[in-house]
């Protein structure tokens, strides 16, 4: 199969359907990314690096937004999230020979990405133990986001409420225990089913559901009485 011979549908961008995340227990059909990854393997095995890179570029285009969202919600730092995404894709390409075609490429990539994000978080914790913060990068990023997400037609009061609500939600998500946070973010932000998350994390699917349940319950309790100002 040639690199340019595959007509691809537009990448799925965000959640669709009634629920914010994929239905728990739903079986994901074999994604186009998985097929493309198999073709990349074939091209690399045949020594056709250029075609392999072209195909991988398509995978990057389709997956990078989703990957960036995950990394951003994990790290809360634009530059670091950007680097984590780059590292994950490069690692996926360099180790694509070990990818098993009957599994989901998206799940495999996400697993690589999460491991990278966790490593970065650990490194950050180590750094913060020994070093004083040079600049509040998170706040700077936050200001950029505030500026970018501010709709012109919203009153200043509504903007302020929306900001407070979002800040509160972020703070509450950060307060969740590690596993609950991981499961919540994967299901809620990255649109993965509980089965996918179980596959990524190595947890039992029912355990994933319990973590998700507890995470949502905590968040709802914490956010109770707060107006949805968005």
């Amino acid at each position, binding site marked *: 199969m040639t690199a340019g011979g595959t007509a691809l549908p537009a990448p799925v961008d*965000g*959640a669709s359907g*009634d*629920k*914010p*995340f994929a*239905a*728990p*227990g739903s079986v994901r059909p074999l994604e186009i990314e998985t097929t493309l990854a198999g073709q990349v393997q074939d091209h690399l095995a045949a020594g056709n*690096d250029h075609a392999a*890179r072209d195909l*991988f*570029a398509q995978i*990057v*285009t389709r997956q*990078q*937004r989703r990957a*960036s*969202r995950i990394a*951003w*919600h994990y790290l809360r730092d*634009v530059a670091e*999230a*950007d680097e984590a*995404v*780059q590292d994950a*894709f*490069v690692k996926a*390409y*360099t180790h694509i020979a070990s990818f098993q075609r009957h599994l989901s490429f998206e799940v495999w990539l996400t697993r690589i990405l999460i491991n990278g994000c966790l490593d970065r978080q650990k490194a950050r914790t180590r750094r913060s133990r020994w070093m004083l913060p040079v600049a509040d990068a998170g706040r700077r*990023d936050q200001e*950029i*986001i505030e500026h*970018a*997400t501010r709709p012109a037609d919203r009153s200043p009061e509504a903007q302020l409420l929306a900001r407070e*609500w*979002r800040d509160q*939600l972020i703070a509450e998500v950060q307060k969740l225990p590690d596993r609950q946070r991981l499961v919540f973010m994967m299901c*809620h*932000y990255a649109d993965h089913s*509980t089965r996918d998350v179980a596959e990524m994390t190595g947890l039992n699917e029912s355990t994933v*559901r319990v973590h*998700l*349940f507890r995470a*949502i*319950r905590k*968040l*709802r309790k914490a*956010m109770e009485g707060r107006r*949805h100002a*968005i």
Partner: protein
Amino acid sequence: MRFENRLAPTGSHLSDDQLLEVYVLAGDNRHLHSCRQCTTRFDELVRSLRHMHEAAVREADSTFTAERLQDQRERIMRRIERHDHPAEVVAFPQRTANQPAVHRLLGPARRWVAAAAAAGLAAGMFLGFAMDRRIHYAVVDHSAPQSAPAPARQAELRDDQFFLEVEAALVGSRVREMRPDLGAIDLMTTPLEIREVTYVRE
């Protein structure tokens, strides 16, 4: 008893946790079909969770704009390309078979000339250094006492200087008397041997 058929402990309605269980487990609770109040609460739950999701997605997408993603994609592809074509390590240049060695270019006679030139250079440098050292020591010997005279020694030197000047004046008068136009007077007097008086330092 399956959870779908459990009822809320409060009575005939599902609790918040049970609604959440329906949502997370994608279960189908019969009660939800019949109870309008619980259906409304369930819809509210779904709406609030969707709202959380949308807010999170909007925030992330406003951070990672299309330009940033394009830039990210280019950097990823550059890194992958570098991986496929790692930078070549330039080998140390080796003599190829058709490239004659330097000693072949220089014949036996030329080699002797080169060796003699090198020896001459070395000898010249050695002599140069030796001469330089001798001159250097001589200069150092002559100038050493002047370098740091003590105060008592300075007074002594001033006296010496004074005596030297006196002596020079005396000798100078004699020399003046020996001028050719005064030769006749000189003849009439006892010849005087004029010696240069030098001051010998202790």
